[in-house]
């Protein structure tokens, strides 16, 4: 069924791609005005090509080939030299790395020692700071206590002074009252009555 559906162009393509065509299919190709000349020309070409004699490559190709040989020889040697260079480079690299490792190790030990020293110094400084802090706290307490005591003494003195002043004032007032009482007692009665009539 599918053969009937195939167009002459598709048949031609199949034939050109190497497929064998049946007589019916060939007739179908030749019946089509477009594919007929193409098919005939292609057939002519195929028959001519089958008679074509391939030319030998000229002997002077040797001019060409040594260049290729040189390239391939160079390539082969390049690989070997490359490998040797790689091995050498890796050896040098490993020695250098070992040396670098040693130097780094020594550097690390020196650094660790220095760090330990620094830690000791820091601890000493911290201890000193702690001591000075304690001293400062003691001093502060001492100052506060002294101040408090001094204030207490000053207040006591002030109270004593005030009480003395008060006692002296009371004594003066008492004297003045006594004097007034005496004056009243010795004064004339008229004056007293007159004053009372007014």
């Amino acid at each position: 069924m599918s053969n009937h559906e195939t167009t002459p162009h598709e048949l031609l393509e199949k034939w050109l791609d190497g497929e064998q065509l049946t007589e019916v299919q060939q007739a179908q190709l030749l019946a089509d005005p477009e594919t007929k000349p193409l098919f005939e020309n292609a057939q002519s070409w195929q028959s001519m090509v089958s008679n074509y004699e391939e030319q030998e490559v000229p002997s002077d190709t040797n001019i060409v080939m040594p260049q290729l040989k040189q390239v391939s020889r160079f390539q082969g040697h390049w690989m070997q030299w490359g490998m040797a260079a790689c091995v050498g480079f890796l050896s040098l690299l490993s020695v250098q790395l070992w040396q670098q490792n040693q130097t780094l190790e020594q550097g690390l030990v020196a650094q660790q020692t220095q760090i330990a020293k620094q830690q000791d110094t820091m601890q000493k400084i911290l201890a000193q700071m702690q001591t000075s802090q304690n001293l400062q706290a003691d001093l502060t307490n001492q100052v506060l206590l002294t101040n408090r005591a001094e204030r207490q003494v000053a207040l006591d003195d002030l109270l004593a002074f005030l009480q003395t002043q008060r006692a002296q004032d009371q004594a003066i007032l008492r004297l003045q009252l006594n004097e007034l009482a005496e004056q009243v007692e010795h004064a004339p009665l008229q004056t007293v009555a007159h004053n009372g009539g007014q």
Partner: protein
Amino acid sequence: MFFQSQDKLIKKAKQGDQAAWLKLIKQHEQQVYNHCLRLTGNSHDALDLMQEAFMSVYRSLHNFHGQSQFKTWLFSVTQARCMDFFRKQRQSSPLEEVSEAAHTPSCPIQLQSDNQHIHAALQALPFEQRQIVELKFFQHFTFEEIAEQLAISPNTVKSRLYSALGKMKAPLEVIRVES
């Protein structure tokens, strides 16, 4: 075992084995040379092109991983060199001169009658069509393979081939009359 498969030769050539590389060249040099000869029309250019093609193949051999047949890959590289060659030729001389030069090879080949007719008919075609006729009738590649080699669509390949077949009607009739 004296016979070495092509795959083994390619593998060895990739590893730098010059003997394997030369064997590989020997297996294909006649095909490539004749291909270039039919495209250029003279042996000097064909030899130059063959050399350039093999140099390119050698340089990019590490890129070949067997994804297509070696012959297909070899011819795609050769096609690229041929296109470069014709592009340069077109740039260096006007189109008319190129077509005339193509008709009269600078170094005439000693060919038998059939070969001469074929060369004459091929040289009468534009390069793009000549390339397709060469790959189809002489190298027997399928449309798909030709399209892959030339990096164009299969439909373009077909249209170029049909156009070439149409143009070759007259030369073929002359050949028929002569014979």
